[in-house]
């Protein structure tokens, strides 16, 4: 049993705004919640490479090809930072990877939607990365040191991700009729899923209170979502994109934009594995992992051989 004194001491450190470091005492539940949340964040970065990677080969200009490639590569990097941070909690990356490839660990459902047109790449940059930045900016102040530092680095690198999407979307919105149509169609399809990225309403989010008490998160799902909506309404208007919600309305009293009901049935359906791309995403990641096994083994075998040779020589 964890004694109350230690728990109180821990809570006091959190309340004083101190960062918790890997070797510090922490409640087992705090550790478990972090592992769950951080690894899910990491898996999302990795699976997130797939929908966008889908357009690298077909990007419509050399510049856009380079931008997209660099962005998807960053996602690999961010996944790597996050796995590293999770590993400080005493769990190996390979175990974490097994948990989502073959077990029940989750990744963000947004990546189970298909990128059908190139405009989807722009909409993802604007909306999905926009939502991720809102979330990660908060997580950069998280109470767990390694997680906070990983998010600081991620935020610094990710600022171009949203900008490139928004910039290209603006160009398409201002482009030929076909481009305009393509851009609006993408925004229509990605708007609601991007709102769902913040998770269920606070009333349906069992982990929220605990995570906030421990300052792993500093704001609730609904607070973050509202912040995102307020910002996006402004940005959509600036480039002449319509948001597919007839109920969007500025509320003088609250100073925020009210929005319509989020289609949660769809959300849960995708979470359950019935999104257009769920199966393919996992299949692709498993294939990469399994096809890479002989490569990883070879590197280990070579390292062992070289070590033996060195030992013999000395």
């Amino acid at each position, binding site marked *: 049993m964890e004694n109350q004194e230690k728990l109180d001491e821990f809570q006091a450190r959190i309340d004083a705004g101190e960062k918790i470091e890997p070797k510090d005492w922490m409640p087992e539940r705090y550790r478990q919640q972090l592992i769950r949340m951080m690894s899910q964040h990491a898996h999302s970065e*990795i699976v997130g*490479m*797939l929908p966008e*990677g889908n357009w*690298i*080969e*077909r*990007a*419509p*200009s*050399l*510049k*856009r*090809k*380079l931008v997209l*490639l*660099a962005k*998807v*590569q960053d996602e*690999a*990097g961010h*996944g*790597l930072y996050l*796995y590293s941070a999770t590993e400080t909690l005493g769990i190996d990356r390979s175990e974490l990877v097994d948990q989502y490839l073959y077990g029940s660990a989750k990744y963000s459902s947004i990546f189970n939607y298909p990128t059908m047109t*190139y405009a989807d790449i722009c909409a993802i940059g604007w909306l999905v990365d926009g939502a991720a930045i809102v979330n990660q900016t908060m997580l950069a102040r998280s109470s767990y040191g390694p997680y906070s530092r990983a998010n600081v680095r991620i935020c610094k690198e990710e600022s171009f991700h949203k900008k490139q999407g928004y910039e290209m979307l603006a*160009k398409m919105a201002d*482009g*030929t009729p*076909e*481009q305009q149509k393509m851009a609006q169609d993408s925004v229509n399809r990605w708007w609601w899923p991007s709102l769902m990225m913040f998770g269920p309403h606070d009333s349906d989010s069992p982990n929220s209170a605990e995570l906030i008490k421990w300052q792993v998160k500093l704001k609730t799902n609904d607070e973050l979502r509202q912040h995102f909506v307020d910002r996006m309404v402004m940005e959509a208007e600036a480039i002449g994109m319509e948001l597919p919600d007839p109920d969007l309305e500025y509320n003088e009293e609250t100073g925020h934009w009210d929005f319509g009901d989020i289609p949660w049935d769809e959300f849960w359906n995708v979470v359950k594995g019935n999104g257009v791309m769920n199966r393919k995403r996992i299949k*692709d990641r498993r*294939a*990469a992992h399994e*096809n*890479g*096994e*002989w*490569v*990883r*083994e*070879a*590197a280990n*075998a*070579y390292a062992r*051989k070289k070590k033996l040779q060195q030992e013999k020589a000395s």
Partner: protein
Amino acid sequence: MTTETKELTKQEAFLAYLLRLADDRLILGQRMSEWCGHGPQLEEDLAMANMALDLIGHATALYEYAAEIEDEGHDEDYFAYFRDDREFTNLQLCELPKGDFGFTIARQFLFSAFSYFQYERLKDANDEQFAGMMNKHLKEIKYHLRHSREWVLRLGDGTEESHERIQESFDELWMYIGELFYMDEVDEFMIKEGLGVDSSEFKKEWKKLVEDTLTEATLTVPDWDQFMMSGSRKGIHTEHLGHLLAQMQFLRRSYPDAEWK
């Protein structure tokens, strides 16, 4: 053949030379980028994306300069997106499907080793802008060579499976390496102008590097005198290129009047 060979102008030779260099890098970079999200280990995903970025970045710079030399109001995208299979002059080596990780590494090693010797010389070319570009790209090529060479050693001298796999890849790639040293009137013209490189000058060094590496990796060096493919510098390609271009160019060509930069 009875057709007379028309005298090349400097502009024509320079343009053709730049496009060959650029096409090699764009097509190889395109193949390398197919790994993005599918690498054998996360760290290697980053490494391969870096190489793809370098290759496509080098190609872009070369196309930009080609557009300047050509002086017909084209931009870099014109060369990448609006030419057909027969106009592409990349090596067949670069267009072959990515294969497994061993195949990708073996090809990258052979190509990077060649590029290394080639750029070592081109960095002193008699054209400031061109030479500067070569010098800048050389640094990245050195890293590609180092990275791919280290992997050849690990796969060759790793497990039985990895040894077999990469041996097979080298065997399969071998007939495409003859073209690395192909030279024609374009090269001759460029050499004469102090702009191009005579690849026969470093063939020995390249072969030695390849042989030493394969030997260290406990691999068998395939027969240097076996049959070698040819024709890519004149636009003769495998069927793979057409599919690669179809994918790469489709969106841009579907909406040619749209702004995509």
